[in-house]
């Protein structure tokens, strides 16, 4: 006689605590589960829908400025602190957690155009159209500050005067130097009242300057004459320059890929470049319908956030042609500056309506402490959604975004224009001898580099 038994040892099945989960045994034989694909598809669909339901990206607004926000700077050493400056010369330090002003830095006459913080987070550098560079000591964060609502105000530790108005400033990563730009690019040391070095890229003013976080001696600037130029501050002349059809409003280096940078262009697109090639962009990121005013990379290097004159904030993947997210509110005006928080979890935007806005980088992310099981569930949902993202239904749900009417209309219009142009080109091409009309790829279309005479 044959007896089939299931024998399980008590030790394996005894729970240590009553809260522990019961062990469940599965037979992973795929033939026993013929519907697994359908099941996972359904889960992906649900996950996609849930993501939509839980998408609440707006965390809060920080108001206090009396004029449009012109620039921001994040403290690389302290997650909660963010500096913002407005067009009336007011600089504020905000506590992101409580969304209150911690400290004010009065002194600038006229708009502040550039803000930056040293890597150790101790020195704030600001510059503005009053042709001064001001260095401030950043107050140490303490528990009392966050509790009390009293706003302190600080005195500049140094004021350096220049000849021309300054439009941007950036601090070297883990170094002593910072660069200001205006009529020319000046490299400053904290302790010197005169620039240690300066470049004059052309006759037009330089509107943005960014140091490379990976290679601290390399910086990229963009100027009003539609050029982007890479400098090595140890050298006397420029390395590479890229001239485009429209000017670049802001530049951001990829913090994880030091050779790559992205420029926020006036034509509403962002162009990612390899610093070693100026003939073509590596990627063109399209979606904004108006000039892109500012750009900042996520510290993970996989995404960047842009703020645009079309009153929206978008998040792009570093290698994707279209944005994965758009943020907008009814009251948000032209966005002049955006920042990605140092832990890649939040996005902060400053706009013309005198407010700073705090957004989640992932709209449906659950904040707060997440239990391991929750975490696993989230991961699974994400993975399953990612796996079936190509399927029509899921794709549709994941891509769907409600847009403000002006943007929606502008998109439709630009699409119509583009289609018409394409149609015309196609016809022209068809009716002319083959090879006579060459369509330039999008990546090189708007670059006008003079060929270097060898």
């Amino acid at each position, binding site marked *: 006689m044959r*007896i089939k*038994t299931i*024998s399980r*040892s*008590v030790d394996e099945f005894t729970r240590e605590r009553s809260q522990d989960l019961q062990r469940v045994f*599965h037979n*992973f*034989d*795929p*033939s026993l*589960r013929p519907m*697994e*694909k*359908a*099941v*996972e*598809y359904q*889960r992906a669909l649900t996950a996609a829908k849930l993501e939509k339901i839980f998408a609440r990206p707006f965390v809060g607004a920080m108001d206090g400025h009396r004029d449009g926000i012109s620039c921001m700077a994040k403290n*690389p*050493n302290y*997650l909660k602190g963010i500096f913002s400056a407005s067009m009336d010369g007011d600089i504020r330090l905000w506590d992101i957690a409580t969304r209150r002003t911690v400290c004010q830095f009065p002194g600038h006459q006229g708009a502040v155009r550039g803000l930056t913080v040293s890597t150790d987070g101790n020195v704030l550098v600001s510059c503005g159209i009053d042709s001064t560079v001001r260095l401030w000591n950043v107050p140490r964060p303490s528990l009392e500050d966050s509790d009390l609502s009293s706003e302190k105000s600080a005195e500049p530790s140094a004021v350096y005067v220049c000849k021309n108005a300054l439009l941007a400033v950036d601090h070297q*990563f883990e170094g002593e130097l910072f660069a200001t730009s205006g009529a020319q690019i000046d490299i400053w040391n904290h302790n010197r009242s005169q620039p240690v070095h300066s470049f004059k890229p052309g006759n037009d003013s330089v509107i943005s300057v960014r140091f490379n*976080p*990976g*290679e601290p001696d*390399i910086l990229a600037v963009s100027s009003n004459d539609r050029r982007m130029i*890479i400098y*090595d501050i140890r*050298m*006397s*002349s*420029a*390395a*590479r320059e890229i001239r485009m059809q429209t000017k670049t409003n802001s530049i951001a280096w990829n*913090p*994880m*890929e*030091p*050779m790559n940078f992205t420029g926020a262009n006036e034509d509403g697109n962002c162009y990612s470049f390899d*610093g*070693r090639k100026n003939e073509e962009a590596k990627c063109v990121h399209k979606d904004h319908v108006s000039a892109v005013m500012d750009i900042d990379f996520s*510290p*993970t*290097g*996989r995404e960047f956030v842009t703020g645009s004159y079309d009153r929206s904030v978008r998040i792009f993947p570093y290698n994707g042609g279209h944005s994965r997210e758009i943020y907008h509110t009814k009251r948000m005006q032209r966005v002049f500056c955006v920042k990605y928080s*140092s*832990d*890649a*979890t939040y996005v902060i935007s400053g706009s013309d309506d005198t407010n700073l806005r705090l957004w989640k980088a992932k709209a449906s992310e659950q*904040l707060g402490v997440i239990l391991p099981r929750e975490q*696993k569930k989230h991961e*699974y949902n*994400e*993975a*399953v959604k990612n*796996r079936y993202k*190509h*399927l*029509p239904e899921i794709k549709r749900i994941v891509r769907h975004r409600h847009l403000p009417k002006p943007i929606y209309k502008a998109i439709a219009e630009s699409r119509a224009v583009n289609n018409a142009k394409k149609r015309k080109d196609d016809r022209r091409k068809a009716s002319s001898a083959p090879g006579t009309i060459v369509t330039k790829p999008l990546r090189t279309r708007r670059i006008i580099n003079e060929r*270097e005479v060898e």
Partner: protein
Amino acid sequence: MGGLKRKSSSSAKSVAKSKKKKKGPHLPNSILKVIADQKRPLNSDEEEEEDEIDSDDEHGGDLYEYEEGVPEEESRKNNRYDRHDNYDYELPDDFEDENVESEDDDFDGGNSENDDDDDDDRHTRMLQSLTGMPSAAFQGESKSKPVLFTEAYPEGEFNPTRDVLEGKNVLTEEDFLAPLEGKPGYHKTSKQIARMRKDTKHVVHAPLPKPQRERLERKAVIGLVDGEFSKWVHLVKKNREAPTVYFNQEVDLGYSTVGAIASEFQPRTEFEKKMASLLNDSEVSEAHRDDGARLLELNEVSMEDHIKKRDHIAKIRNLLFRHEAKSKRIKKIKSKTYHRLKNKDLKKSSLGALMDPEMAKEEAMRQEAKRVEERLTLKHRNTGKWAKRMVRLGLNAKYDATRAAIAEQLQMNANLSRKMHSMGDGSSSDESDDEEGLNDGSDEDTPSRLIAKAKEKTLKTMEDDEVPNAGLMSLPFMARAMKKKNEEANEEAKRALEEYEEWENSGGENSKKPVSVSGRRVFGATAKVEAPKESKKDSDNFYDNSDSDNDMAGVEDNDMEDVRDNASPARNTGTITETEFDDAAGNQASKTTFDVAMFASGSWKKMTSCKNTESKKESKKTRAPISQSQDKKGSRDEESEDSESEAEEMVDGVLASASKETFEIPSQAELINRAFAGDDVLDEFEKDKEEVLNQEVPKPEKPVLLPGWGDWSNVQRKRGISKRMVMEHEAEEKERKQKLKTRKDARLKHVIISEKVDKRAEKLHTTTLPFPHTSKEAFEHSMRMPIGPEFNPSTVVSELNRPEVVKKTGVIIKPVKFEEVNPNDEVDDEHPRNHQKQRSKKKTGKRQGKVKSK
């Protein structure tokens, strides 16, 4: 000409200037004059020349001066304009200019001689101080050459003399040296010059033009910056290709290896401290480091220790002696009862079992029996009358003893029903039982006995010829085939019996051929005698001719993937889908698939397999098995359809070779015919196809009138169905025919190709190949395995679901730090939470915040 032009332009400028002046508030001429005069002396030298050339120009007639007329209001014509006071400063009419310029000229002219002399003096003095030679050397030169100035312009770098341009009359060092010849110091100077000429290294070339210089500079900078960027390429590539990038490692949990922990060990308890003091004793370590001679000295044992040790040994000896004495005494006891009881006690105790191997075996057997009994009866599971009563009355809560007893029972149950790991390697008890049985047989039975046993079995099987009355085997054609086969098997068995009798008669002499005594072989050699056996459950393997082949191919039967052939693809949806069935799943008795194992080109080839449904109706459908090549042992296999476990052991390579000569091999077709005798497969297939076609392209309904409608009167009845309806029906029929014609399987007689689109299945497919995938196969492969926790073991689920970027809220992510990456290295499988690796890397100078790949 250049000079000329410039002149003209300057004159034009002056004209323009004057014009400009005139355009403004109209100044009186006198003031203009003053202004002009004041300007003059600044460039008085050139003025003369300019005048000259101006005159030239006038001759040439290129330029002419335009005199602006006096504005009307100032001309006071007809007094048309109001008189107005002129508030400008007006010089009196009789005012005369001071001709400053002319005075200057005069002064210059007057003192020119003096000046020249002074200049020469100063020049010689300077030369003297520079060269260190006496002034006499320069005297003659200065005066010797008269100044002849014929150029319109003073010569300079932009205006070289004609001589220079033509390349003659260029000054060389010799020209300068010639007048010095014979003077003191000449020799030295000429030598120096000669040396300088030879020395080509330190020649400083003229600088390149600026644009060229800048271009070169930029090129150099570009090269440098590009180089700096390029060094990151490998690191960036590694990070990009990594399936997951980690940014969440801030916590360092410390050492993880034993060695690392041991190295930081601090003795805390007294014992540890004592040990440590001994281990770290400087004397001992020193002695070790030396030749070791001093170790002996250190090894000295104190008297007390010695005594202690001696006492201990004495005690042990004493005990041993006592034990010996005791056993001797016991041995002397002659009572058998006493010994029996004692042995029993010993056996009962597990200690005894451990000591004697034979006893252990017996013990194991007994345990096993107990276990089986326990599992059968479930005696100790509190299901007994007593236990139930105790529980019902709540006595177990009341009395400790009762509770203990119940607990004991449960414990016993747990012990008995637990899987015994010590009993062999068989996974289930019955298997091990079987094996034991076999082993026993092989140990005890001589070949003759074995054969006798086999004979018995054979006879038995010949007798019980029962036809299964359920399942697949009950189907008529199966029954027929079975019957046929049984007959054959019986015949063979009879033959075997005859052989056996012969063998017996010959006194077992024939069995001289080596028959090994162990296990399978024995059975293999004799199995042909008892081969024909049947079992209901084994219907799937009925036509499975693969047993011996498996052995030949070295594939185990269980592992082998059966190949199912579906001659009727028109099942269920009719789509030709490839669904793999595992062997285990396919062997279910309820399933109705016939396995036709294919043996094409020596390797098993997967063919399409079809899904089964368990319904009876479906099971009636038959498939014509196609087999490409039949292995030679068809008949052998037919009869050797084996009963579950035994048969596996019985069929063997030996057996196969032994039986080869005895039977002729029927052809594949014959076999199939035999198996499916009386089956009209083709007909059934056609029916199937029609059914499918009807489903997919439904037949139009025949026009009928609803009962009670249209048959009120005879007239209506006569008229019958309206013409329109008939026409419609005909059109529909036509359409259907058209549709059938255009089907893919319209001309393929033996194939059904479904053209039904399953909308639900559509959802699960993309219309185009998604971007990163390059081929359909790759994409499908990536989608094949599910990733959920239900379908995967928990150990891999987290791996499968891990996001591309792992970060933690609140952890600041620093920019990338440079580290050398070997591009040829594979992506290491190291987990970021492996702290040892992390540490080792930190030591090599990597900073935190770096990106690691998994």
